[in-house]
């Protein structure tokens, strides 16, 4: 094979490659590309609980009866307004007029009944089936009105209906949503290049206020350096949940970018297996909480972004109680507690899921535990293995994970939950909370719950995961906080 012609072809390719690179791509004003770390396994929010699904479709493609606002408040969605009966058992929703699905089919009460019944059915694959457990029946009063009857009062029913898993799907397109989502939102689905990006485009006859963007592209970049390089090279316009906090200082120093720091619903905890000796002894658990220096972890793992928490509750929530003092960093006390508990040269298995808060936090915590004489043996596991070993099989001593579902203090009431707490008193508080509808009563109950799990030192509560976002300075309207897993693009636009 003579090699000369091949050489000429390759050299020209290289040269052209270089040449083209010279002209920076001009950012068209009516479209935006958003970076995300995890790719959704599919695009049907009612068929899987992965956060990535909601981060693409929530409020953009699909809408529920109610929806979360930027600050977490519950706003009207496809339900224009609603009346709640005295006994709190019946909710009558007045639906939007003139709303339609992207495939042209009309939106009416039938679709709402279908969606709710589908989610609460026996063989439903909806990940959050519990949200619909209290519904006893759904009645179509007229095409624009739906009446939902509850088996027992549920103060957070409207809150539950705002979840991504409770969005309204059309009877005709429900099954195809995984690969070809059809909703009522301002953007409709246009293309999904697996492993690379999902493209949404403006839905012309959207019922609500017109959005200011023609096209939204979600690009999936799991590798932090690639994410940094993509932002720096101008391939992306924004990265709402930027995976590498250590690079934020460089973005702050660059006028092209704006760093958006907000809070998230992610309570990051060092979960302990309460049923596995010696962790079943409260003194040992307290010793562990005192061995931990929260600020060092925030500085080391998250480069200073994150607020310390003393219990499993989001600090930005009005009902939050600051209990960090109860488990302050005090190695001496920790060693004393261990002595009291009669435990010496303790070795614990610390299993860490992939996110950097876990992998880096884990190394720091292991070093801190070593100071008080506890050896933490680290094993890094993938999500699938974490779910199998830690979450289902409960085969662990310590693990680090961030619970990003909104208002999820209720998990401490579940019996089969992986850190195996299931305390009767706590369950009682939760039951009262479910029945309470008056806001002050709810706040008081929530604070009692927070105090309970802090006193029992169920887990070591580390910090609230900060929402570290980076965006092009000229891009306006992105949510600073993430009250739920979502990238709401409805309010986003380019500044002139």
């Amino acid at each position: 094979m003579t090699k000369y012609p091949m050489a000429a072809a390759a050299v020209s390719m290289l040269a052209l490659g270089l040449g083209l690179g010279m002209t920076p791509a001009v950012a068209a004003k009516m479209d935006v590309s958003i970076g995300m770390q995890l790719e959704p396994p599919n695009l049907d929010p009612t068929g899987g609980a992965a956060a990535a699904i909601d981060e693409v479709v929530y409020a953009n493609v699909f809408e529920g009866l109610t929806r979360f606002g930027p600050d977490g408040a519950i706003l009207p969605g496809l339900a224009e307004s609603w009346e709640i009966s005295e006994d709190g058992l019946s909710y009558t929703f007045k639906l939007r007029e003139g709303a339609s699905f992207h495939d042209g089919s009309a939106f009416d009460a039938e679709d709402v009944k279908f969606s709710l019944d589908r989610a609460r059915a026996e063989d439903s694959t909806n990940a959050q089936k519990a949200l619909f457990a209290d519904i006893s029946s759904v009645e179509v009063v007229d095409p624009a009105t739906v009446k939902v009857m509850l088996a027992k009062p549920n103060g957070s029913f409207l809150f539950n209906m705002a979840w991504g898993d409770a969005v309204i799907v059309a009877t005709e397109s429900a099954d195809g949503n995984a690969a070809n989502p059809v909703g009522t939102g301002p953007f409709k689905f246009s293309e999904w290049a697996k492993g690379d990006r999902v493209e949404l485009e403006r839905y012309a006859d959207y019922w609500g206020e017109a959005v200011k963007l023609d096209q939204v592209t979600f690009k999936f970049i799991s590798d932090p350096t690639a994410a940094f390089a993509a932002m720096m090279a101008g391939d992306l316009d924004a990265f709402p949940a930027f995976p590498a906090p250590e690079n934020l200082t460089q973005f702050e120093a660059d006028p092209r970018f704006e760093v958006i720091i907000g809070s998230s619903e992610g309570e990051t905890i060092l979960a302990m297996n309460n049923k596995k000796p010696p962790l079943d002894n409260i003194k040992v658990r307290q010793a562990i909480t005192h061995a931990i220096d929260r600020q060092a972890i925030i500085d080391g793992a998250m480069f200073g972004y994150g607020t310390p928490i003393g219990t499993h509750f989001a600090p930005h929530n009005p009902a939050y109680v600051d209990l960090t003092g109860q488990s302050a960093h005090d190695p001496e006390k920790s060693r004393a507690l261990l002595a009291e508990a009669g435990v010496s040269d303790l070795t614990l298995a610390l299993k860490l899921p992939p996110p950097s808060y876990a992998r880096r936090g884990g190394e720091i915590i292991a070093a801190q535990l070593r100071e008080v004489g506890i050896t933490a043996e680290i094993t890094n596991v993938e999500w699938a293995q974490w779910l199998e070993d830690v979450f289902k099989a409960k085969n662990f001593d310590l693990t680090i994970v961030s619970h990003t579902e909104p208002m999820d203090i209720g998990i401490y009431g579940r019996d089969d939950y992986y850190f195996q707490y299931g305390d009767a008193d706590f369950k009682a508080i939760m039951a009262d909370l479910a029945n309470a509808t008056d806001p002050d009563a709810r706040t008081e109950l929530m604070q009692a719950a927070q105090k309970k799990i802090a006193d029992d030192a169920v887990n070591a509560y580390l910090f609230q995961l900060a929402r570290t976002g980076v965006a092009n300075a000229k891009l306006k309207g992105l949510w600073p906080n993430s009250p739920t897993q979502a990238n709401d693009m409805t309010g986003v636009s380019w500044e002139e």
Partner: protein
Amino acid sequence: MRGDHSEHSFVRTAIGHPAFVTGFVLSALFVALALISFVWTPFDPTRLAISNKLQSPSPQHWLGTDHFGRDMLSMIMVGARVSIAVAFVAVGIGMIIGVPLGLYAAARRGSLIDEIIMRGNDLVFAFPSLLLAIMITAVFGPGAVNAIIAIGIFNIPVFARLARGAALSLWTRDFILAARVAGKGRTRISAEHILPNIANLLIVQGTIQFSLAILAEAALAYVGLGAQPPLPSWGRMLADAQTLISLAPHMALIPGFAIIITVLGLNLMGDGLRDLFDPKLRRGRG
């Protein structure tokens, strides 16, 4: 093979061979670092000091500190221990299992066993090695031991094939026929006559496989499947450094250079050994 085998002159010519000397010095440097790390390191590599993180090289920390404030030099020294240990045991597995297989297949050339061993080799060669190493460590959990097994498995066919090839060419030699006429069996001949005469080849290939194993361990550690924390490893240092590459380039460059220098040293030594063992190849065969 008419090699010049008295020890004295072997060492003398070795000193004179530039590639061998540079290679030997570079590799010895890192082996020494690894051994010293057992006894002493400038700082405790697992000790975190978040306050002085990301310092570039300074008189106090010769190679600077990483994102947790740990001393890079100490981590490199202990990392050398991990890399060299993993590579050594992995290549050991490859040799201990691979060479007897190769010799056994060569002694029974053309038989069913020879065919099976060779087909087995083709099979393992057909598998993309890095992908399977990742799968093995993902299946049985990451960690230095699993990395050793994963890399070891892919060294077995290399040595099996090399041993079989070299042994086959020796079986036709007269001194083997003489041994057969003296009534010696296949296994005895393989052990007494064939193995010593292919030892040189194995040593040369050993150094090359050793350097490849170091690269493989670094790759596995880079994707998080090598040695687990708190045990430092070069590959993982690279993975940690990746997101900080523009903020603290030294964090990525230093482990990178450590890997390059060790692998370069081993390859040069391998080349040098190949020339020294077989003067016929003194022409500097690639």
